[in-house]
């Protein structure tokens, strides 16, 4: 795949943990992956963002993400519920969702994949590990993976 046609896709991360959001942002910056990173704090906000409701009505602050990084354990509505809702939504189900969680439970993995997650990744323990992950994610999803152009609306 030609590297010159790198289109910066928006990555949307749903995570309730402030520290994890900060670390991910830093790691992304460290990895030099050229992507916009947006955050939402739980499943409710995630759906509001994607449907452009509430405080996310303005398209400019809620661009359609090319990739969603989804934490599982969040208040109000957790990752599992949100995933189910997204994959049921006709317009949204096409967005790849990568589960990024601390849980190592087998049943969470099974449920995640069954609900239609593209990948299941356990959060790295060290910061370097997080940087490495961001680099890899960026490379994979941006350089190798084809995303339909109509996504970037």
């Amino acid at each position, binding site marked *: 795949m030609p590297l010159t046609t790198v289109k910066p896709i928006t990555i949307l991360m749903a995570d309730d943990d402030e520290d994890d959001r900060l670390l991910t942002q830093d790691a992304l910056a460290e990895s030099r992956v050229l992507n916009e990173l947006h955050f939402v704090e739980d499943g409710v906000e995630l759906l509001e963002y994607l449907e452009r409701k509430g405080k996310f009505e303005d398209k400019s602050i809620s661009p359609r993400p090319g990739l969603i990084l989804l934490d599982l354990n969040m208040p109000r509505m957790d990752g599992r519920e949100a995933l189910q809702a997204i994959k049921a939504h006709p317009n949204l189900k096409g967005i790849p969702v990568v589960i990024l969680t*601390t849980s190592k439970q087998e049943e969470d993995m099974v449920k995640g994949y069954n609900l239609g997650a593209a990948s299941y990744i356990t959060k790295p323990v060290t910061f370097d590990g997080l940087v490495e992950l961001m680099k890899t994610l960026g490379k994979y999803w941006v350089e190798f993976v084809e995303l339909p152009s109509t996504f970037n609306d």
Partner: protein
Amino acid sequence: MIKRKQQGKANVVWALFISIVLCIIVGNAFLAINTIQGLSRTQQSLDNTNMLSTAIEQLHLSVVQAESGQRGYLLTQADDYLVPYYDAIAQIESQTNHVSDLHSEIDGQAQRIAQLLLLVEAKIVELKKTVKLALNDKEQRALLILNSHEGRDLYREIRERVNDIQERELLFKVSHFSKLAQIKKEAKITFGITAVTSALLILGMFLLARLNLKNAAVYRAELEMQNETLASKVTERTQELTLYSDELSRSNRELEEFAFVASHDLQEPLRKIQAFSDRLESMFKDELGEKGTDYIARMKNAAQRMSNLINDLLEFSRVTTRGKDFTDTDLNSILNDIKSDLEIAINECNAQIVTANMPVIQADPSQMHQLFLNLISNAVKFRGPNVDPVINIDFERVSEFSEDHNSEISWHVITVRDNGIGFSDEYADKIFVPFQRLHGRSQYKGTGIGLSVCRRIVERHGGSIAAISTLGEGATFIIKLPVDAELFTLKGEA
């Protein structure tokens, strides 16, 4: 107890009743025999008297016949009259013999009969005399005698005697007939009584049998009821036990969930500490300087140790909560797995692990793996400074008498011996306490949980573990596991 007394009393009463009835029957039998004897005696007497009467009558008739013959001949001189005369005379002799042979039961009858016979004899003499005279044509003299009434008187006397005798015999006969009637009546009564008492006895036996059957039925019903009570009690107990065991399972599950969640939630802040420490280290290396970097390194170290501690705690609790059912476990293959798990460490220090032929035992395989992994990695870790570690694992089967079970118990005794640094014997028990260590962090790594996990595992299997050592001369760990694992534990629960 009361029932038995009542039963005893009833038995005595019945015994008494039966013995009384038996006495009556025996008495009746006695009377019956007497009656029959009386009957036959009376019958005999009657026969006798009849015979005698008949014999005397016959004799009388013969005398009459002789007399009428004689008279006839004397009066008519016709020979015809001599025929009955001679007949009678002939008969009289035998008849006389017959009469004298017979015997009367009447008092004085014998004398009378003797007297009669004498008279008859005299009569016959008279008759013979007259006939002889007549035959010799001495009719005149004969007639004389006739007319002298000698014959007639004799005959009269005879007749009187005969009548007397016969009368007496008749009276005797009559009295004996009435006696016969009496005996017959008595016999009827006697047999009637016997019949009645027999019937009563049979009835009594029947009633007793009925009573016994009824009692037996009552006892049987009672036994059945007790059995039912027992069965329902057993069911109740079983239900209670099942509930209790379910409760234990639930409790274990909850503990496990709690332990897991607790450890998970405790790990999360530690990760943050480590992650931000990393950031600090990399982003502000220059500003921190040597001291700052050192502090951060110590912070990270502390966080890591806490993380290890939490993991070890979780592992410790899981010996119980994640214990699995016992199955056939080949210790040889477990030891081989451990040798390959520790391959790097073993090769690094040139360690030698010598294992004897190990048995197949009833145990939780993953826990056995953990047990020996902990022991062997300890042996490798605490090796001597200048010597290649040699670890010997031996096995022996031992039988002992157990007071608790009042029988012989068989044990698998496994020893793990090393030639490492050893420890002072005074710490032989302390080393099994969770998180107890004998050395500082800087000397040897570890949280001090390994041996307490070993002890927990061994105890879950119903066995024991002990350590023997001398400082500087290696250590020996002795594990005892019961051969009959079920004897000591509930299935898989501890």
